[in-house]
């Protein structure tokens, strides 16, 4: 190997990218979709409807809990947000040997319980992007290795440029491979900070899995004991064992909350702990829109008379540092505009990885006369890894709409459809010539995405009409995003076909 630093970095960039490129792409695509986790979930649960949530929601929910969940040891209300109008009640009844949990989804205006289809919604993309659907088989370790590899890719990529600034302003359009190289360079420079923060925070989130050694050495119970030392939480609740009635008119508490948290719709969740005890406590959780950290801010009140109780202290700096990286990764602080910006940065990163994979192959195919097995494999995996993944996501959305409402384990079946579609695309890429497979899969993907909003409309026109009537831009936005994805695939298909002819 050559001792020249720059040449070493080029070599490292080429091969570190090749080894984990497809894995990184799958993680970045599903991770980018997770920015719209709540919006996608809303679209995938059309039974929730589009009616705006009335301001009566809290008191109506409390009344319902008071009748349906009398004697429970806790109550919880997850309020609807501007991103997702899912109003969910849950409560726990004391029982031996195991407590029983109940939950109920309420209609946003009539406050009657409604049946919602069983689906993981957008949350599937969030869990997939770090567990790879292999939670018990080390999926999170693979994701961690991929994150470290991304950091190596960024670092070595920076040194691959001979002329960092001139490269940025160069786009050669006469040759496809050169266009791709310049695109890779431009997108690479734009996404450096984004990819860096995302990869570092990914590694920070799972320190207790990736780097448990120091904490295991210093503390008997490892990460759990360390976390208890640096984190803070509300004091433990001691039951008084005197029966009492909980407050069901929330206005008293709402006024106190608004003094502390002045923004609109500050409350994300309301929990009653031991509502039927004289020491019962109400914990109000704030939306994470006002803080970079992923620590949920809470206020505590007595559930009997509503006076404020002591809250939690602030945490140690080390813990806060990790919390802020965690918060930056999740981006729950982002408003709609910033969220779109982050989404575009994520899409640009996907483009960066995909163009890198295609470049690796085409640069080598241009040079060699005799192809070997490696070229063949990379060629096929590129097809399945890039366009196959996009198609599999469409398969997941179709499964959500077309599977029977009452199917047993419906949510798992949707995920199976996702994985099977991906497998089918992989098989298809192996049995067809590469150029044909690219074109045909692109066309199938384009048609699938373009048809999906119409399938949705035919299945139940009410969903779309109601979304239109009540200006539900979450629902309409997902439909528009599907049409856009389909159109981009179609344009790309036409361009690629024209070039081949």
């Amino acid at each position: 190997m050559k001792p020249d630093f720059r040449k070493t970095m080029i070599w490292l960039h080429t091969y570190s990218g090749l080894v984990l490129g497809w894995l990184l792409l799958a993680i970045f695509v599903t991770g980018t979709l997770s920015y719209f986790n709540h919006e996608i979930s809303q679209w995938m649960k059309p039974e929730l409807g589009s009616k705006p949530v009335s301001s009566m929601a809290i008191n109506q929910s409390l009344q319902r809990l008071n009748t349906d969940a009398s004697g429970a040891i806790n109550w919880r209300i997850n309020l609807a947000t501007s991103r997702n109008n899912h109003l969910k009640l849950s409560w726990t009844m004391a029982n031996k040997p195991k407590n029983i949990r109940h939950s109920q989804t309420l209609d946003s205006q009539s406050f009657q319980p409604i049946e919602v289809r069983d689906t993981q919604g957008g949350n599937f993309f969030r869990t997939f992007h770090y567990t790879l659907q292999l939670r018990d088989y080390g999926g999170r370790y693979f994701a961690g290795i991929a994150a470290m590899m991304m950091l190596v890719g960024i670092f070595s990529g920076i040194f691959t440029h001979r002329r960092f600034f001139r490269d940025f302003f160069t786009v050669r359009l006469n040759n496809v491979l050169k266009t791709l190289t310049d695109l890779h360079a431009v997108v690479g420079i734009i996404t450096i900070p984004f990819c860096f923060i995302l990869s570092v925070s990914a590694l920070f989130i799972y320190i207790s899995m990736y780097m448990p050694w120091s904490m295991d050495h210093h503390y008997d119970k490892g990460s759990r004991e360390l976390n208890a030392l640096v984190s803070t939480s509300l004091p433990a609740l001691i039951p008084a064992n005197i029966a009492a009635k909980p407050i069901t008119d929330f206005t008293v508490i709402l006024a106190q909350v608004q003094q502390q948290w002045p923004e609109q719709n500050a409350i994300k969740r309301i929990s009653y702990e031991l509502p039927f005890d004289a020491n019962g406590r109400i914990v109000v959780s704030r939306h994470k829109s006002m803080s970079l950290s992923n620590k949920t801010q809470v206020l505590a009140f007595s559930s009997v008379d509503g006076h404020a109780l002591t809250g939690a202290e602030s945490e140690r700096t080390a813990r806060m540092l990790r919390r802020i990286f965690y918060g930056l990764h999740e981006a729950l602080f982002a408003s709609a505009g910033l969220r779109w910006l982050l989404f575009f940065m994520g899409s640009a990163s996907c483009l960066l990885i995909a163009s890198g994979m295609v470049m690796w192959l085409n640069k080598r195919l241009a040079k060699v006369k005799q192809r070997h097995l490696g070229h063949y494999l990379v060629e096929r995996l590129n097809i399945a890894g890039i366009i196959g993944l996009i198609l599999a996501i469409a398969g997941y959305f179709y499964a959500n709409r077309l599977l029977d409402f009452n199917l047993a384990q419906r949510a798992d079946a949707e995920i199976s459809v996702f994985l099977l579609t991906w497998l089918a695309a992989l098989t298809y890429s192996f049995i067809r010539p590469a150029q044909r497979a690219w074109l045909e899969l692109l066309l199938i993907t384009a048609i699938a995405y373009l048809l999906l909003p119409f399938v949705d409309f035919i299945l139940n026109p009410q969903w779309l009409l109601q979304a239109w009537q009540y200006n539900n831009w979450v629902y309409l936005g997902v439909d528009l995003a599907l049409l856009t994805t389909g159109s981009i695939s179609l344009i790309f298909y036409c361009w690629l076909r024209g070039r081949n002819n």
Partner: protein
Amino acid sequence: MLQLFSHYQLEITARCLAATVGAYCFAIASSLGMVPVFINLFGSLQADAVYFATLYSYFFGFIAIIWSFCQRSALLAWRDIVMACVILMALHFWGTI
């Protein structure tokens, strides 16, 4: 061995091992060895020091990955990583005394 594999292949394998196994061991050594440094130099509490040392260990691991490909030969890369590990572990044991 030398007849079966070319010098180039041995070099690459040794460097890749240094960048994976070596770098991870180096990161572990730093997550232990930096604890007394944080406590004595910056006056951190032990819990904070362990937390920070764990967070910073990725940085050390990353340096080791780059170093294992940049050093003149694989053998030298391994030598540097082992020496750095020894220094960090010495710091760790000095901290426990």
